């Protein structure tokens, strides 16, 4: 009886093996390094929706990167004041140009990079060479330049750099506020490592998937900030980010969804420069008839969408960029919500032989902004109600890009594309050229009149004239083109812990200056 065959003991043995494994793994977990760093008991914790995929200064336009880098780790020759919109000196002390083609920048002296390299004209030349290296495919070069393209960047003194452009560019100083200067020791042929700059903080650790640690740079040329160290962490879900503030694990949560704003919470809202809109493909029948495009705008109840889908955290839009943009046309009025007039326009078009029953695909991007899916559903219903045949099809980034960009597929269906545009630069050219000109990479319409105005605006040396010409182009868009259903100027929502003192600005979506933050206690 006491001799048990080996196999018979197995079930019990298996159970204890599992228990043993569980126990030892809990033990193992206990031994793994804790997330708090010794010697730094209490860093500021910022919780963002996503981790940056790289931290290279030449890719700093993406907001997840720029929140960490811009003005904290790396600095530019100039900077745009968030309150006034004026371009002010940063690493340069002054700049000048006679013809907007040749620009001379005088550089600040006595500045060093976080790796000890001196900041001088040679460092700026190295940074610009790297920015325009085609093999690196830097975002900042592809998005902010080409055109204009610098034909030469020369050190004309130890602390003087001369840029020569291929065409006049009156906003070159503004453009340069987005070009951060990394250390000349930054690898010339790869983008993997975290940026080293001249800013008040240096990146001391990047634990991929966990956090990015920034510590105060003691040799900073400017005023030393109050906060000694900060840690950026990433949580995909808005309620989790809010939960981290409530539980005291984080001090600043970015990108809070409207439905997660609790009563009494320390939230701040700010115009984030983002415009939600829908692009109408005006080059395919039946949407090539302007009456249908006007009807789509008249049938859109923007305020209702703002109240329901955006929780009231937005305002009605009538052009692609926000009022602080140079080139914004303040004379244009909001579209009226008039579904009856919209239905009449559709019927008029039908009477003239336009096939209004043709299926129109409404391409949605559910990941674009909170409740984006609901927005397309509301719009499809509103547009169906005036007699159009709308079908929703949701797509993600890759296919969406192919639908957006020229060359468009000649055999495509009539379509409307959900989109969102953030003009954070403050100049109309970054929106108008690609979106509305005949050759524009994202355009789906063509108006020679608009093209002529844009051409003039781009080379006008006087900024007021530039603003007037762009505003004029927007009027043409509104009256003769109507390529968009502009929906809403969005607001960003952030939440703060009790101990953090910070005031959000119009640039807070892509610029979180740690030096503007302090602890109250």
């Amino acid at each position, binding site marked *: 009886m006491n001799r048990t065959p080996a*196999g*018979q003991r*197995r*079930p*019990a043995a*298996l*159970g204890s093996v*599992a228990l043993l*494994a*569980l126990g030892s*793994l*809990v033990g*193992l*977990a*206990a031994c*793994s*390094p*804790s*997330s*708090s760093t010794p010697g730094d008991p209490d860093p500021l914790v910022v919780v963002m929706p996503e981790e940056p*995929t*790289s931290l290279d200064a030449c890719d700093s336009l993406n907001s997840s990167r720029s929140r960490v880098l811009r003005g904290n780790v790396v600095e530019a020759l100039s900077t745009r004041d968030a309150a006034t919109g004026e371009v002010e000196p940063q690493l340069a002390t002054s700049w000048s140009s006679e013809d907007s083609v040749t620009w001379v920048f005088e550089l600040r002296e006595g500045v060093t990079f976080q790796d000890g390299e001196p900041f001088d004209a040679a460092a700026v030349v190295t940074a610009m060479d790297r920015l325009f290296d*085609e*093999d690196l*495919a830097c*975002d900042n070069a*592809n*998005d902010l330049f*080409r055109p204009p393209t610098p034909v030469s960047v020369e050190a004309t003194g130890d602390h003087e750099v001369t840029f020569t452009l291929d065409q006049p560019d009156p906003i070159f100083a503004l453009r340069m506020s987005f070009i951060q200067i990394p250390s000349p020791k930054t690898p010339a042929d*790869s*983008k*993997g490592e975290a940026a080293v700059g001249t800013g008040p903080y240096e990146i001391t650790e990047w*634990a*991929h*998937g*966990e956090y990015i640690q920034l510590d105060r740079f003691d040799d900073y040329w400017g005023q030393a900030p109050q906060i000694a160290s900060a840690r950026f*962490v*990433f*949580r*995909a*879900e808005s*309620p*989790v980010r809010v*939960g*981290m503030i*409530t*539980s005291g*694990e984080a001090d600043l949560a970015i990108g809070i969804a409207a439905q997660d704003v609790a009563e009494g919470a320390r939230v701040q809202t700010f115009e984030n420069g983002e415009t939600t809109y829908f692009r109408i493909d005006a080059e395919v029948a039946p949407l090539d008839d302007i009456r249908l495009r006007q009807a789509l705008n008249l049938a859109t109840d923007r305020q209702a969408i703002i109240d329901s889908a955006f929780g009231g955290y937005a305002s009605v839009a009538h052009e692609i960029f926000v009022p602080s943009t140079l080139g914004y046309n303040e004379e244009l009025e909001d579209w009226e919500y008039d579904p009856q007039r919209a239905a009449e326009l559709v019927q008029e078009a039908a009477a003239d032989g336009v096939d209004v029953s043709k299926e129109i695909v409404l391409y949605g991007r559910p990941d674009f902004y909170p409740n984006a899916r609901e927005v397309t559903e509301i719009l499809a219903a509103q547009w169906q109600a005036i007699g159009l045949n709308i079908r929703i099809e949701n797509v*993600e*980034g*890759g*296919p969406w*890009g*192919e639908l*957006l*960009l020229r060359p468009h597929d000649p055999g495509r269906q009539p379509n409307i594309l959900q989109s969102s545009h953030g003009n954070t630069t403050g100049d109309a050219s*970054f929106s108008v050229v*690609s979106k509305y000109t005949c050759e524009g*990479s*994202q355009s789906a319409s063509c108006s020679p009149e608009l093209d002529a105005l844009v051409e003039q605006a781009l080379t006008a040396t006087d900024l007021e004239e530039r603003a007037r010409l762009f505003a004029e182009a927007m009027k043409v868009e509104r009256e003769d083109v109507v390529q968009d259903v502009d929906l809403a100027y969005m607001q960003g929502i952030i939440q703060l812990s009790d101990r953090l003192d910070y005031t959000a600005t119009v640039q807070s979506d892509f610029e979180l200056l740690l030096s503007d933050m302090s602890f109250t206690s």
Partner: protein
Amino acid sequence: MIRYITQRALLGFATLIGVVLLVFVAVRLTGDPAMLYLPLDASQEARDHFSAQHGFDDPIPVQLLAYVAGILHGDFGVSLRRSEPALQVVLQHYPNTLLLAFLGLAGALVLAVVLGAASGAKPMSRLDRGTGVVSLACASIPDFWLALVLIFGLAVRGGLFPTSGTGGPEYWVLPVVTIMARPFGLLTQVVRGAMVDAMAAPYIATGRSKGLPERRVVFVHALRNAWLPIVTVAGDLAVSLVNGAIVVESVFGIPGVGRLLIDAVYQRDFAIVQAVIIVTGTTIILLNLAIDLLYARINPRIRVEARFA
């Protein structure tokens, strides 16, 4: 027996090759990485240059040959986003996922065997009915919802655990409970069902009549015969934990391969997608092999069938 193992291993290897081929072609059909890597305003020349530089403009068979040649040298390609070898990135993230999956499955298995066996031994008892409700709920609750409820109940309100992140053992409790729920629910039901069947067998009556303690009857004699379905289901669940890891890792901010995979798919970081598939695929195939062996160990009939196969 060796022939059985060899057969199984070869079949697993063939499956892995098939999966890699499928993934290699499928990710390339989903779109051009240049579209997502470069900003929307990038010129066509910049896009063409990018594609040529990374070989994305070659025909797919050419890309595939280059990839296979690389793998044979231990080179799984370089991550487009991180500029690091893809395999290295995946292996950095893998321990977290393995720990999560292992703790989840081990915890589920232990709890399910104890609760399932106890309630299966006494069908329709109070314990059995209670276990039924709990296990059904656990099997049906979406993990995403459960994660948020746990965070709010136990971390934000209760203050018992951190909401999310990585660190000491306290950080693992909520993620493991979340990933455990579904396997626990399903396994408990399987264990209970298998136990009810086993308890009806004549040898149970024999055991009881010869005076064995009830605990021994249930947990040794009956449970031994209930193991086969449990191992089958547990094996399937282990495989599905990779899916569960995607949600749990995203919500709790754990750097594991689930989150890595989903991000890489969105960013068209092909090298990472392929490396994750190869690494997790190999694990799953090894796991299946282990389960097959365990089968043969538990059920002698399989050994016999294998011999005559």
